[in-house]
């Protein structure tokens, strides 16, 4: 696997997200940037099996963007993966566009779940795993969760059920960027000990640096094996909210804000370095 090629794709996705949200004058670029290497590895590192021209192929691996406000990252990845023309990206959040502010299933090929109200994706992912089992298919289901999102009770209902049903084809990835909307997680509603929580719910727990592409590839590959048969796996990805743009990394109040054209120009420069 050519790690440099993946880094180049990650840079392209960040640039596209920046362009999309700046054009739309709204959106959540900082929430996309913390998950960019993860999504890049899944779609372009050979971890997901998919057929862009047959988006409902029953045997496909599923990716569910449970933190739906990172929709622009999902859309950019789907465009580069060949699900639709990249020019559609520039219509994000505009009237009559299928690129809604938060993803709506079936409005766009490749969107596996309607999300935007946090907490729901892992349950849907579990349903896909149970359905695959009944259908005799061996696909895997990856669900990307925010760390703030892990405060939602439904996440833990799904976690309990997945262990109960021995859903070892279900992989949760927590984008542990340490911030939610109104502040640091540790100050607003602490999650620690996070790994121990998942462990006690019956999951295998892996941790990684979510921006080190080699580590992301290795850890996600391991998660898909899975490490302990019969158990679902969670990958806790240590990430930086706003990764790649210094002044966004430094200021959590960028949550849910597009960059101004001037800020975007500076951000583009930093991302191109």
């Amino acid at each position: 696997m050519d790690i440099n090629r993946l880094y180049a794709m990650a840079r392209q996705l960040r640039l596209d997200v920046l362009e999309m949200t700046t054009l739309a004058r709204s959106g959540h670029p900082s929430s996309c940037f913390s998950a960019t290497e993860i999504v890049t590895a899944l779609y372009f590192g050979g971890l997901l099996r998919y057929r862009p021209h047959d988006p409902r192929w029953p045997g496909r691996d599923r990716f569910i963007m449970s933190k739906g406000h990172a929709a622009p990252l999902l859309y950019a990845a789907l465009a580069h993966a060949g699900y639709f023309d990249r020019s559609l990206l520039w219509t994000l959040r505009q009237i009559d566009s299928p690129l809604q502010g938060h993803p709506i299933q079936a409005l766009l090929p490749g969107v596996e779940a309607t999300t935007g109200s946090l907490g729901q994706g892992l349950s849907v992912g579990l349903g896909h795993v149970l359905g695959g089992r009944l259908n005799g298919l061996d696909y895997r289901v990856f669900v990307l969760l925010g760390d703030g999102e892990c405060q939602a009770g439904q996440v833990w209902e799904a976690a309990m059920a997945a262990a109960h049903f021995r859903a070892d084809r279900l992989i949760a990835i927590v984008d542990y960027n340490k911030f939610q909307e109104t502040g640091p997680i540790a100050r607003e509603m602490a999650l620690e000990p996070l790994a121990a929580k998942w462990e006690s719910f019956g999951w295998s727990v892996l941790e990684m640096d979510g921006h080190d592409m080699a580590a992301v590839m290795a850890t996600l590959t391991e998660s898909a094996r899975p490490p302990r048969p019969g158990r679902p796996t969670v990958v806790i990805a240590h990430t930086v909210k706003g990764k790649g743009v210094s002044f966004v990394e430094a200021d959590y109040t960028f949550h849910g804000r597009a960059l101004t054209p001037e800020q975007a120009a500076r951000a583009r420069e930093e991302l191109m370095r």
Partner: protein
Amino acid sequence: MIQTVAIAQTPGEARRLGARAGLPPATKPLRDVFGEALLEVATHNPRVVVLDGDLGNSTKAETVRHAFPERFFNIGIAESNLVGVAAGLAACGFIPWITSFSSFLLCNAYDQLRLAVAMSNINAKILGSHGGITLGKDGPTQMGIEDFALVGGLPTVVMLVPCDAAAMKAAVRAATDYVGPVWLRSSRVALPPVYPADGCPFTIGKANCLRQGDDVTLIACGIMVAAALDAAAVLADEGIEARVLDLHTLRPLDVEAIVAAAVETGAIVTAEEHLLTGGMGSNVARIVAQHRPVPMRFVGLADTYTESAEPDELLRKYHLTADDIVTAARAAVRAKGKR
């Protein structure tokens, strides 16, 4: 993300919401006014506590966090827990203001609102922020287009829908003073002042008559009040004199004002930023049908979700403008003639 521009129904000053009725332009987003009003009641009443679902920066409940951090609780992204905790605080004699987006609260915590708040008849206040479609670009997953219907299913809960800054301030005070559960809708956008600053007479359950007229009554709430006033100005040019009611309280309904409208004007149009199914219009129609059936027309959202776009684009595409009210009023008046 803060949007201070007024919602223009079509580009240009003449079509700015409220312009045809002679209302001044909107200045402050309604949510900012809510934040100020909440801080005011929290300052005057030390029993007021505020619960947040990690959205205080968006709902503007954060004003209380900054001033009285000990009376502010961010429960995190966990709305059902939030509502339950509020119920406990209410039982201890506090007045909890439960704050989040309308959609997240109602859809994630409906059972808790049902048992712990409505059935228990506790003294909690619920802010449903970002109501309707005018939150715009975040899209349909975040919009609250079904809140009147869902709160309608909580029979003990008073339901308030302020139409401008003065009404918002008055509504926050009235809700806090009232003993019992109250739901209050807020919006992300700025609305043109219908009332003079601090000049909104606000009695829970008592509609405000904003314009006299004998030919038809336009009954509106929220953003549609300014649109109804615009529509009344257009209708006046055609010789149709419309009465305009600001129905700021959806429960208890002002039966007297609704029946008087039917009796005295003989036709009614309702206008709301909400689904028609289960909305304000259907509740008004129930009163009209029972006491004095007259022709009615309904402006609101058909059975559909909307989409991400600028608020003014959405209002046009989904038929929530003054022009839509004018069309409906003409039809209602025509139907009256046929009787």
